């Protein structure tokens, strides 16, 4: 696969936030991820695209060690965030997940009030000194999730009562409330209608100011709209990684070209 990895020549404008080397993932007997090497930059939106079952979500879940919760899943290789190996024995996966926030495919607000949903992470990690402090954190997170204006008058209403798009933005607000450095998004718009999708995409663009965002998406248009860098996965391999513009206009690998033009997928 080495010949396919053309990104080594690209000029990196931002510092590297996440560096993955020779990552392999096995689900029982299935070899789900093969030899993935990738550098994800800070304050950049990186999109993972590829056909269903190509391993892009699996790889995403390696970055915050969510795969640890699956018994049969085995990860080898080296993933470093800011130079620190996250699979090192010294690293507490629970602590890591506070630093690497995640937004899921389906909006999954807890059956609690909007306020408690956002305050969940800060409470667990003891980020607030007092009630007023917590109120501030919640307000800031909801504002950053671009949903403050819609919910500020009903913070005690159940989070499950919001519309799908609002729920997803609430989940994003919930994720940013713990002050993560990286935000992982696993097809965050696949359960949303076009208007909600547009709102979330706009939000992702704003989040780029503060975070390193990694988004898995099925929609190539979405990848083109929101990301600066794009990685194309196919059958567990990282086929091509580079500037989004380049991937979509002049892909180097024939498989990338086939996927983008709709011949595989």
């Amino acid at each position: 696969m080495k010949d396919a990895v053309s990104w080594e020549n690209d000029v990196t404008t931002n510092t590297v936030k996440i560096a993955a080397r020779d990552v392999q993932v096995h689900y029982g007997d299935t070899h789900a991820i093969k030899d993935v090497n990738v550098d994800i930059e800070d304050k950049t939106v990186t999109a993972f695209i590829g056909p269903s079952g190509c391993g892009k979500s699996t790889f995403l879940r390696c970055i915050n060690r969510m795969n640890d919760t699956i018994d049969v899943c085995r990860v080898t290789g080296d993933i470093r965030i800011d130079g620190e190996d996250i699979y090192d024995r010294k690293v507490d996966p629970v602590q890591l997940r506070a630093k690497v926030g995640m937004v899921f495919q389906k909006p999954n607000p807890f059956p609690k009030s909007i306020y408690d949903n956002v305050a969940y992470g800060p409470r667990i990690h003891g980020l607030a000194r007092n009630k007023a402090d917590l109120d501030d954190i919640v307000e800031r997170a909801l504002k950053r999730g671009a949903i403050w204006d819609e919910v500020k008058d009903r913070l005690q209403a159940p989070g499950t009562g919001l519309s799908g798009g609002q729920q997803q933005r609430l989940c994003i607000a919930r994720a940013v409330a713990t002050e993560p450095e990286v935000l992982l998004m696993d097809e965050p718009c696949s359960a949303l209608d076009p208007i909600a999708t547009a709102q979330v995409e706009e939000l992702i663009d704003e989040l780029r100011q503060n975070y390193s965002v990694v988004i898995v998406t099925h929609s190539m248009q979405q990848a083109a709209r929101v990301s600066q860098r794009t990685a194309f996965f196919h059958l567990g391999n990282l086929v091509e990684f580079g500037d989004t513009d380049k991937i979509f206009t002049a892909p180097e690998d024939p498989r990338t070209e086939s996927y983008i033009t709709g011949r595989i997928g």
Partner: protein
Amino acid sequence: MICATRSQIGGYVGSLLNAGSVGFVVIAVLVLTAAGFVLVRGRAVASVSGDARRLHSLPNYYGYFAGMMVAVPALLLTALWMLIQPMVIQNTVIDLIPADMVAEGSSVNLVMSDVRRVADGLDVAVAQGAMTADAAAALEADQTDVRALLADVGVALGSDVAAPVLEAAQKYRVMTARGTGTMAFVVLALAILGLIAAMWMSTGNFRARNMVERGVLVLLMLAASLAILTTVGIVLSMLFESMNFFRMHPWTDFFFGGKWAPNFRGDSDLSILPLLWGTMYISVIALLVAVPIGLFSAIYLSEYASSSVRSFAKPLLEILAGIPTIVYGLFALLTVGPFLVNVFGRGDNGLLGVEWMSGATAVLTAGLVMGIMLIPFVSSLSDDIINAVPQSLRDGSFGLGATHSETVRQVVLPAALPGIVGAILLAASRAIGETMIVVLGAGAIARFSANPLEAMTTITTRIVSQLTGDTNFASPETLVAFALGLTLFVLTLGLNVLALYIVRKYREQYE
């Protein structure tokens, strides 16, 4: 000689018919059904000259249809006949018994059971060849010792047979034989009629498949309505007996009195309140044991256990649910009770050196064992409910850096709470209705006391004790059992409805 032999054989066959004729009729109907299947299927195929594709339905459907036509009306009639015949015969026979005998012997049912017993005894005697059918019909109570005669063939009677009873028994035999014979004839005729009708209808265009479909629908509806009707029947019978009770005993004493002191000479204090107190006290202790342990084991099994542990531990836990409650009762009586006495009683010889508990039967004994019984119930229901909480909620919580127990405590349990409350209410209604454990473990003294080391009694134990032994179903001391039962029924029904309502409301949240 020949004549006697013939009548002997006749009697033998007759009694065989009598005893086994219902079985004979059913077998005959089943044979006819099988024959109908083959015949009608064959006729349907023949009607399209062997080309099954031209039939409306597959050939077997014509066979099923024939089976339906033969078996269903015939068997229904058999069942109905067997239900009604004894009633008709009893109403006729009862006229032969003088009214004073009934008054003396306390109830019509008791006399009738004597009659049936003598009649059965005569059947046995005839069947074994101890006497001829004619001789059995001609017996006279004042000439023969019927009791000794029946004892010879192995039928023991409680007392000498009075003349009217013997006469009634003979009449009973004759009518039963005649009725059963008529039934056999009518039922077989109906079955053959059904067969003929099925033959006549089953030609190429007949929609046998649709008819079978309709038959299946009726069968299913019948089964469903039978379950509901039985419940209604049970409630009504309890209601009528309870009304009899309240006619004899003031309802104010039953619901608001403070004493339970049944006295079979009459003038009893029959209040439910001390019993209700005992029931509630024991149930609360049982739930205090069962809910934490059951819930924790459910959390372990559904959240922490690996699938191999789970596949091994869950069936094991559910074995507990399969243990008969009488065995739990023995456990209470022989193991838990004496152990508790050892701890809390026996003065200086006991473990604590105190003299708080005198007997093995106590509220605590019954409560603990009942709690153990309820553990698998609570755990299995809670396990299902916890598993129904979507994985996405757990992922969301883990994704925010929560630990496993934080996730369980703050996300999974709150989401599952309504369902768990429902499970606890169901467990409570089982605790309230539980009988054998409290019969053996709780004692028999009705009182208001807060001391869990004392013996107390419950509604269910009192129902058992009021109805066991020689009972007379005309006294309030016996009939109170039905009022107690009805109250218990209303109580548990209320809890079940509440629990189901809560569980259902919870389900809608995720679907």
